[in-house]
């Protein structure tokens, strides 16, 4: 009798697959090696949004499946293949780095699945290489640095030294900065794996500029800022940075050497909107010993975007409906006003922040003013969908 009941309830469950099976979201991200904290933040931000809704997004039960790509394009592709063809996942996200995205995203969209980028927004996928199944929630790479150029201009500087690693993202960074800055720019390129910036410090001092812009994410950025202070340049020559070079983890690692720096960002922890406040509070409760960075915020916003679409479609079975729902961007972004441009990259505001001494002398970023209002990116015009 009992087994009959069990069988009956099993049958009932099978008849309602939507109830039994949560919608899987595949996350390909970088968790190992020096940049591992970036992937960790994105993953935890996304999971936070899911937990806050009690394991659901937009009223639909979801499960986040995470795998480490080890910063290898081949591994990213392999994981995407497994997610799509073995686990039947139709919604993927999570990639941190542009080169992993370059190998993985075309495969995903060609398979008819949807990819939502919580971080990398490389130019080769933003212009002619855009795709209806590819969305970017974070930013297009160039936009990050255009904001810094706008900041330096607005602060009244006219002569800048711009430093970045000698690879594509670094050159794009300096180009983006110079585009909005408009003043005189002395370019200094650093080596790809360089961690000692003493030679550059001497060059900065010799250049006699009135502002420094530098793009060195992660560990390189930490080393740069420490050495900037040790060289006696902090306070002597002001610095403006874009957000990957000044995230909350970097701030914690460099301490007082960051005080007085100017940053630019699309989101900051002190934003005065309900969505952001709820996220900041929930993060502090769940991960008290780790700061929330923009990466975590991007993961969280990605989840909220997915929630807004799932609330309309109820699932991922109808990809066309899901795509249309995503494109509306009908969610309360933690950064305020947000919409997608013609290439499905963000159109958003950019802000100026200043690093000041907070509790116990720890550096915190305080939002000062809005720099750019509702801007997209320069590649959108090349995108034909």
């Amino acid at each position, binding site marked *: 009798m009992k087994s009959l009941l069990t069988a009956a309830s099993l049958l009932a469950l099978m008849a309602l697959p939507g109830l039994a099976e949560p919608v899987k979201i595949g996350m390909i991200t970088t968790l*190992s090696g020096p940049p591992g904290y970036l992937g960790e933040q994105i993953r935890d931000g996304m999971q936070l949004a899911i937990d806050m809704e009690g394991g659901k997004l937009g009223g639909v039960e979801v499960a986040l499946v995470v795998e*480490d790509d080890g910063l290898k394009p081949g591994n990213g592709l392999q994981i995407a293949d497994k997610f799509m063809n*073995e686990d039947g996942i139709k919604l993927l996200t999570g990639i941190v780095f542009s*080169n992993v995205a370059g190998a993985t995203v075309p495969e995903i969209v060609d398979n008819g699945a949807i990819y939502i980028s919580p971080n990398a927004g490389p130019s080769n996928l933003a212009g002619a290489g855009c795709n209806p199944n590819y969305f970017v929630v974070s930013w297009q790479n160039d936009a990050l640095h255009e904001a810094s150029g706008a900041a330096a201009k607005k602060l009244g500087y006219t002569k800048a030294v711009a430093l970045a690693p000698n690879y594509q993202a670094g050159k794009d960074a300096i180009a983006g900065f110079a585009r909005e800055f408009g003043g005189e720019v002395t370019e200094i390129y650093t080596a790809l794996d360089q961690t000692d910036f003493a030679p550059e410090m001497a060059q900065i001092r010799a250049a006699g500029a009135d502002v420094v812009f530098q793009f060195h994410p992660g560990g390189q950025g930490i080393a740069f800022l420490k050495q900037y202070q040790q060289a006696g340049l902090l306070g002597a020559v002001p610095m403006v940075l874009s957000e990957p070079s000044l995230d909350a983890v970097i701030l914690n690692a460099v301490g007082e050497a960051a005080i007085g720096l100017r940053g630019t960002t699309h989101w900051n922890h002190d934003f005065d909107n309900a969505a952001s406040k709820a996220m900041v509070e929930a993060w502090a409760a769940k991960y008290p010993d780790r700061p929330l960075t923009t990466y975590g915020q991007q993961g969280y916003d990605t989840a909220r975007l997915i929630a807004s679409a799932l609330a309309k479609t109820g699932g991922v079975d109808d990809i066309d409906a899901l795509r249309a729902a995503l494109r509306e961007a009908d969610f309360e972004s933690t950064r305020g006003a947000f919409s997608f441009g013609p290439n499905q990259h963000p159109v958003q505001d950019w802000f100026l922040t200043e690093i000041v001494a907070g509790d116990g002398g720890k550096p915190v970023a305080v939002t000062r003013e809005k720099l750019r209002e509702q801007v997209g990116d320069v590649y959108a015009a090349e995108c034909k969908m």
Partner: protein
Amino acid sequence: MTRHRILGLGLLLVLALMPVLTDLAGQPAFLSLMTRILIYGMAAASLNFVLGFGGMVSFGHAAFFGIGGYVVGFLFFHQTEGTLFLGLIPGTSQLLITLPAAVLVSGLVAALIGTLALRTGGVQFIMITLAFAQMIFFFFVSLKTYGGEDGIIIRRANELPFLNMRDKATFYWVVLAITTLFFLGLRRVVNSSFGAVLDGLRQNERRMAALGVPAFRYKLYAFVLSGMGTGLAGALMANFLRFASPDMLHWTKSGELMVMVILGGVGTLFGPFLGAGAFMVLESVLSSWSEHWPLALGLILLVVVLGTKGGLMALVSRLGGRK
């Protein structure tokens, strides 16, 4: 001999049926893992040809792997742009042209590097091959037209007449066919008089020189052949990933190929394929179990080194009752 032949044919049959088997097992993604294993196996076997059979420990084989990949990338790029490479060479996406081109170019680069590097030996050879590979790496990173660090996206895989290369099973069979030919060719070279000379050079170069063997020239030939094989693998990998980036040229990739060779068995014909398979399957399976997979992988590698002498091939032949 015949037992080996039966084993070999059996293995080939299983490999040929792999697309069907993975489908039946409900694990279609395993097929792309197998494709990657075959490609890496070819690269590792090419490295093993100089490292295991020739005694030349190269720590710069990622250069040839990457160059092979980039040849495919360049040709695709110029085909879509409708421009000429270096103002001379038109682009193409025909596999029958891109593969030989990749093999040729990586062979030329190997000849150049080999001519200089083979003046040294031992540890110095390890480091000088690394030096050249690093220089090539930095060169590709600074190629702005071709995406620099972001790499070239190869939107469509190269074409073969009458075949749909977008189909995963078809692509796998093409790679399997190339791997089989490669393996047979490699076995032939290793068992030839050239292979015997190479073996002699590894054991005692001075004695071979006394016998009148032009050691440098033989070693250079071997190095070039090895570079060509690795370039072939790189070209196939770029087709598989539909992407070529400096990541293929990074020194850690040279290290990975070396790890595959040592794990499988240095100086064995089949070892590098086994090593590539074990390494990639471990990486794939472990990383799907836990985010802390590198810890487990590291410990397993340690156990294998300390526990076996001569890698997995030694283990296999010991289990198989020696021979």
